[in-house]
């Protein structure tokens, strides 16, 4: 790991570990938003990891962004930090400057006909922290990046299992601030949101394992710690294996974004992104079931707080395409390429 990335990860970890405790997560579940944490994160500049230095960013790579987004999952950051990182990158790709404030990232492709006289119309669902957004970002079917204000919007409040907002937004002649062509597929945001969730799954899963290892080292039954039982050791070994597959595939997909990006050609990062989200989503089952099982009843309580991780894992594995959707994509690539060629595709 590069020196810079180490420093970035350590500083992010320090802040998150300090501020995002179980008590904090409990309180945010009641209040819905922590402006203090958001401000601290803004000051740190980590949402700007992919933005050019000239615009006040870190000019980092996707591999750098990975360690931050992963840590967001690890700490259950109850704020749209991964989405903000993505918005910054989209703005860079389209050579525009984003307004100040919180970005509402829209994963679904907007029909280009929804942009009328420099205003936006129509309804979109599943917008993370849509209610808290100061502006919205989307890509149209004409492959244009749209940045719209939050005037004339109607918000229907929804949330995922992790209690993170995931709202439906209706635009009713909302002013468009920017409309700029962007060299990304029209569903590019959805691909990248799936990639972000894979990284959050990696982080949260690693925390689940960490807590489980600690717990079985302390809890005693039959006169010895649970960690001394071979049955428990093997369960945690399987959990570690699941985690390893998530980590490896997700890190590879971020790396592939650095080398190939996503464009409309045969060999970009799409294959690895699909594999990452599919693998991460598949592996959530073993992480959460073993993690909860070794904890016994205490892990099922609200107070213990394991659920901050596991409820998010259950939400994230389905968000922006679950294992089934991405697996179907991969299966289609395989059958289209055919048995002989799929290896050439994988090892290229």
């Amino acid at each position, binding site marked *: 790991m590069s020196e810079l990335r180490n420093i970035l990860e350590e500083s992010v970890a320090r802040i998150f570990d300090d501020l995002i405790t179980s008590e904090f997560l409990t309180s945010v579940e009641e209040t819905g938003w922590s402006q203090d944490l958001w401000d601290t994160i803004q000051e740190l500049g980590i949402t700007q990891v992919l933005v050019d230095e000239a615009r006040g960013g870190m000019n980092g790579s996707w591999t750098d962004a990975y360690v931050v987004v992963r840590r967001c999952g690890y700490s259950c950051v109850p704020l749209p930090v991964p989405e903000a990182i993505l918005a910054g990158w989209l703005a860079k790709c389209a050579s525009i400057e984003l307004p100040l404030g919180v970005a509402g990232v829209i994963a679904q492709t907007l029909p280009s006909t929804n942009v009328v006289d420099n205003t936006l119309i129509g309804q979109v669902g599943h917008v993370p922290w849509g209610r808290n957004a100061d502006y919205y970002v989307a890509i149209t079917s004409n492959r244009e990046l749209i940045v719209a204000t939050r005037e004339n919007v109607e918000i229907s409040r929804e949330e995922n299992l992790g209690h993170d907002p995931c709202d439906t937004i209706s635009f009713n002649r909302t002013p468009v601030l920017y409309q700029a062509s962007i060299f990304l597929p029209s569903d590019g945001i959805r691909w990248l949101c799936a990639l972000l969730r894979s990284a959050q799954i990696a982080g949260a899963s690693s925390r689940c394992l960490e807590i489980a290892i600690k717990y*079985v080292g302390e809890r005693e039954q039959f006169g010895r710690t649970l960690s001394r039982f071979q049955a428990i050791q093997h369960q945690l070994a*399987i959990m570690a294996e699941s985690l*390893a597959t998530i980590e490896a*595939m997700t*890190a590879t997909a971020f790396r592939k974004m650095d080398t190939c990006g996503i464009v409309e050609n045969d060999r970009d990062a799409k294959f690895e992104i699909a594999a990452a989200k*599919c693998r991460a989503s598949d592996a959530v089952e073993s992480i959460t079931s073993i993690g909860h099982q070794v904890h016994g009843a205490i892990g099922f309580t609200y107070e213990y707080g394991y659920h901050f991780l596991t409820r998010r894992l259950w939400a994230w594995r389905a968000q922006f395409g679950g294992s089934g959707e991405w*697996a179907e994509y991969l*299966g289609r690539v395989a059958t289209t390429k055919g048995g002989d060629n799929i290896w*050439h595709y994988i090892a290229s």
Partner: protein
Amino acid sequence: MTAINSLRFEPYELPGHLELLRKEVRTFLQTECAAFSALYRSNSWDAYDPKFSRKLGERGWLGMTLPRAYGGHERGPLERYVVVEELLAVGAPTGFHWIADRQSGPLLARYGTEAQKKKILPRITAGEVCFCIGMSEPNSGSDLASLRTRADRSDSGWVINGQKIWTSHAHQANYMIALVRTSPIIENRHEGLSQFLIELPTTGVTCRPIKDLTGRAQFNEVFFEDAVIPHEALIGTEGDGWKQVVEELAFERSGPERYLSCYVLLTNLIDTIKDDASAATLKRIGSQIALLVALRNMSLSVAGMLNDGKDPSLQASIVKDVGCSFEQGLPGLAQEIIDLEPTLAEYGIDYQQVLGNLVQLAPSFSLRGGTPEILRGIIARGLGLR
């Protein structure tokens, strides 16, 4: 927590210049493997074909990492990695040279005597010799250190008595590298073991092939009855056998062979359902593709760590265990997707024959090179649980 961070498998991308080598290997394999049936290809690293191994030797694709002074090519482990994964992906017959190329060559290069290296390494590189590994014994499987075959020093050489078992290719191998006891257990069972290079056939060494459930006989019982081998047959240091073997096993745990044993079945499955796969079927196949790609990247990451001189024994055990469940799961999955009878008979289409072969071989995958139970114990230790 460092243990958990070691599960992160930093991506390792193969250097770009290896793509030329990969292309060369692919072109060669396209011609050389064209005539092999799907059934034959599904035996991959078990199929014994001395002629094919010699051809690889001529190309410079065996003993790639061995020193030039002994006929090797001094190429990096990653170059070997590329060659091996291409061989396995098409199901090329690699059984004759497999053990020699993967572990016996590197072991001898590291611990062998000058004479051993001069005599044998050039032949490994040429694809002329088949090696077998004499480790397991009737009462020593996973608990290898309990082995009892022993070598006693005499004026005429080392006298070996005892028995090895499950020794693949012993009946047709030119050499065995055997782990035996050279001094009695005093305190630590891991002490007093040594490795020997035994030329086969040798007086006093008898191989008896064991028929396996497929009806073929690929592994053996090997009996040692006062077999006398020269003093110079010792590999490395007397008493250091355990340490040497543990290092040798590291070569064994994370390579592409750990997830590609059933690869030919996956490609046959894909080609057989190709045109009329339902969404549900595509999902099941795609999910396995995702795991395959994850495994390849894990295996590459370990190769990168080995290349950088790190010790990835925890990660290697993970690759082997995950890889093994992946490849062992494929026959069952294939059977669920295409409900045709597995068979080795002529009337079966390629898919049926490949399935017929691999469904029978699959149980052996988790028995070689460390069982899941042993591997999970190693992983648990790596996690700090024991």
